[in-house]
């Protein structure tokens, strides 16, 4: 299999997971919670979250970003939505990453495993942002 074919397989698996009702429902729930906590006045916070997810090469950069936001801004602590988001990205999506890696024969603890989890995180935050905008 060529690198390009491999890359497409990864994207396909991530897209399949992202299309799952559980994934959508969670993004909808957290998007609505983010809208309640941040309101439309703090739209830049969601933009910041999208930017860090899309530009980071490490999942832990996204986790650190969320931790700092939760610490500094009470809007992120409203009904613990920020902590829920952190837990979902770091635990649930890690489990989904492991399933994808196992299916594709990828080392989940290697750099490709990190890439798979990052793709899942980016897709989740993209959906969360959409639900946030809809809920505002």
């Amino acid at each position: 299999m060529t690198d390009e074919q491999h890359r497409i397989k990864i994207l396909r698996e991530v897209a399949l997971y992202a299309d799952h009702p559980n994934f959508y429902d969670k993004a909808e729930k957290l998007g609505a919670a983010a809208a309640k906590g941040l309101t439309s006045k703090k739209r830049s916070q969601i933009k910041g979250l999208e930017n860090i997810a899309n530009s980071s090469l490490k999942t832990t950069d996204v986790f650190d970003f969320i931790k700092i936001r939760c610490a500094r801004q009470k809007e992120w602590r409203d009904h613990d939505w920020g902590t829920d988001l952190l837990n979902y990205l770091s635990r649930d999506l890690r489990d989904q990453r492991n399933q994808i890696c196992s299916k594709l024969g990828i080392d989940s603890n290697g750099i490709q495993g990190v890439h798979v989890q990052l793709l899942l995180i980016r897709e989740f935050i993209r959906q969360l942002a959409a639900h946030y905008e809809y809920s505002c």
Partner: protein
Amino acid sequence: MKLTPEQEICIRLLSEKELYHQAITFARSQEALTQDNTQCQNQLTGLLQFSRSWDELTSFVKHQRERDWQGKREVYKTFYTEIEKQLDGFIEMAKENTVLVPQGLSKKETRERATNAAAAMAGEFLQHLYAEMLQQMEGK
């Protein structure tokens, strides 16, 4: 001395797999510090600022460890002692990693490359520590 692309990937993986969890464990062991939010934040910010240079970071940590901390702030002596141990640990981690420090180098080259890699690891660790401790403080 710039890291090679392969070394950068190595550091990135270490950050994800080991340094992130080490920082969380370290933060939980230093709970006493989070009683004084302002002082704790100042110390963490200082560490982050000095983490850009290995020499500046180690000098800062040594200076802070040797300070005459009084009363409730004695916990900072322990904190900086433990940070110093972490930094020494990064040098050893680097030496044991043949991507970061290839074998067969002279003592001087080994030391230089280990320090270079340890600096990168320290930067990652302190970033994770900062975020974790800030979150811990807010939980109080």
